[in-house]
């Protein structure tokens, strides 16, 4: 297996408004020393709740948000070191699907033009070739070529997400960043899009960086999963290991919080792991483990010493008391 993407110690900071007229500008560290690798043809899921930094980490990886430090080695080249023009050329290989298919398509453009636009910008092929490619992509994502001249509002949410996927595929990318691609869709439609993404991954050998808060969705699409909490990866493992033997108490809590058909009111289920409260503020992160305040296993050492990611079987976990 060849490594497509190797992210090392990625850190993203945002400066907050000055406190008072001459006061200091506090810095919020949204992503803190995140490292992961993604192999060709595989999908890495990044899970976490809102504010965990999962979207910011992915956006910094493809330089839609500037990183403060770290390395993003994509096909042997550090993306963070590229100048603007070199990065623009690299964008052929790295494309993106957004969460909301209603706001991510230009309402005044015909969908054929929307899907063709990346090829126009990158100057790929002749006008005829571009047109043919658009038709081919439309078929590939399950739309009909006679719908090419319609406008986005004439499509349902699921169809719009298919259009977004077609647009992302025009430049033959190697890496597709999917930012909550099915969260805005109805459950019945989610299945259509998830099956499409799974098929495209096999047929085109695509790699996904797949951001989601829904563990069921991630389990369906991803080969490996990273769990983020307050800007850090707290557990990373192959899919089976993560779901069958979660090591971090936060991962265990996420799994027991996700609604499941296996837990039935009539059978009097009791949630195995309960956690209370909300995540702490990223402006003043706790000195020790960020999860300690909500953790059922927390000891004195957890509030003092920040745990680091350490291997434990097939899993990497950042916890003083894993398992």
């Amino acid at each position: 297996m060849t490594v497509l993407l190797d992210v090392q110690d990625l850190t993203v900071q945002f400066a907050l408004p000055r406190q008072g007229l001459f006061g200091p500008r506090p810095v919020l560290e949204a992503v803190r020393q995140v490292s992961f690798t993604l192999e060709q043809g595989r999908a890495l899921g990044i899970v976490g709740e809102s504010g965990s930094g999962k979207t910011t980490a992915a956006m910094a990886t493809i330089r839609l948000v500037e990183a403060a430090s770290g390395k993003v080695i994509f096909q042997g080249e550090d993306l963070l070191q590229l100048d603007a023009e070199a990065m623009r050329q690299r964008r052929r290989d790295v494309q993106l699907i957004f969460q909301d298919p209603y706001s991510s398509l230009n309402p005044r453009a015909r969908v054929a033009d929307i899907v063709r636009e990346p090829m126009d910008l990158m100057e790929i092929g002749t006008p005829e070739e571009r047109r043919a490619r658009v038709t081919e992509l439309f078929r590939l994502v399950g739309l009909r070529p006679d719908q090419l001249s319609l406008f986005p509002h004439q499509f349902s949410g699921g169809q719009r997400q298919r259009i977004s996927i077609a647009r992302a595929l025009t430049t033959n990318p190697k890496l597709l960043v999917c930012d909550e691609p099915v969260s805005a869709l109805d459950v019945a439609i989610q299945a259509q899009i998830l099956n499409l993404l799974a098929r495209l991954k096999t047929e085109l050998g695509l790699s996904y960086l797949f951001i989601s808060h829904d563990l069921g969705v991630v389990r369906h699409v991803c080969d490996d999963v990273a769990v983020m909490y307050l800007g850090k990866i707290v557990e990373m493992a192959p899919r089976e290991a993560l779901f069958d033997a979660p090591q971090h108490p936060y991962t265990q809590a996420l799994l027991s919080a996700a609604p499941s058909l296996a837990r039935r009111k009539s059978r009097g289920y009791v949630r195995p792991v309960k956690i209370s409260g909300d995540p702490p503020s990223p402006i003043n992160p706790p000195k020790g483990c960020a999860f300690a305040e909500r953790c059922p296993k927390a000891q004195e050492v957890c509030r003092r010493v920040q745990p680091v990611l350490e291997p434990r079987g097939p899993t990497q976990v950042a916890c003083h008391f894993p398992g």
Partner: protein
Amino acid sequence: MSALLEIQNLRVTFNTRHGPVTALDSVSLQVNAGETLGVVGESGCGKSITALSVMGLIPSPPGRIAGGAIRLAGEDLTRVSEARMRALRGAEMAMIFQEPMTSLNPVFTVGDQIAEAIMLHQKVGHAQAFRDAVALLDRVGIPSPERRARDYPHQLSGGMRQRVMIAMAVSCRPKVLIADEPTTALDVTVQAQIFDLLNEIQRDFGAAIILITHDMGAISEMADRVAVMYAGRVIEQASADDVLDHPQHPYTRGLISCIPALGKGDTELREIPGVVPPLHMLGAGCAFAERCAHRFDRCDTEKPSLVDHGHHPAACHAVEEGRI
């Protein structure tokens, strides 16, 4: 025994630019005290309209209750005066909405807002109502409730705002609590907390809960009985165990098998093709026929009615004729 809340053949129409459409078509539901009824379906299937009809909150015009009855402890809510409705709303039945931020008033403290709801229905002064509000905030699990009661909604997290909404909704111990997608805007760990809280409150107060959701997982954890809705009709209704273990209608089967389960990966999800048809395009036949794998000629000409075909009530010709 008659049910606490009983909806019978409810029909709600809306005037739209496509002409009058039927948003709810002969919907019948019952909930007993201390029981949770889950109402499930995709967006646009009539779940929220059903809830708003019970609360007397259908915008009229364009909406109109065109037929049927909604009986709360025997009293038909479709026939009572607006003044009577106002007295019932909040006291006898209350609703929790999807987005707690837009349902709370941003310029009053949450303690004052809960106190206002209490003073509307009980003869108590502000000081007593505020003390009750603090006790309620404590009951719904908000830490340091005396201090939090003096906070404005924007100072609270999403999960805490939804707890405030629940505190307000249960402030007068309503008999019926309607929760319309109460956790859609929340993170999954917070969603679990809210579900556990609703179950506790039901045990304490014995309220009947109507939980509106699109998530079969939530139904499994929360509901005693389930009604599945599609295009303004109830297409299947039974106990949660019957619906989840022996779904009859092809739509219900689809809804259950299209969820990416935590328990398995990699297998292809069964999808329901197509989308819910717009209400003004409904024909003479079954509204689900377009998307159904078991469709036959009868489905295009005749609307199936909700009848027990052996296991439990389902509105499907294919089930009736034993084709599935």
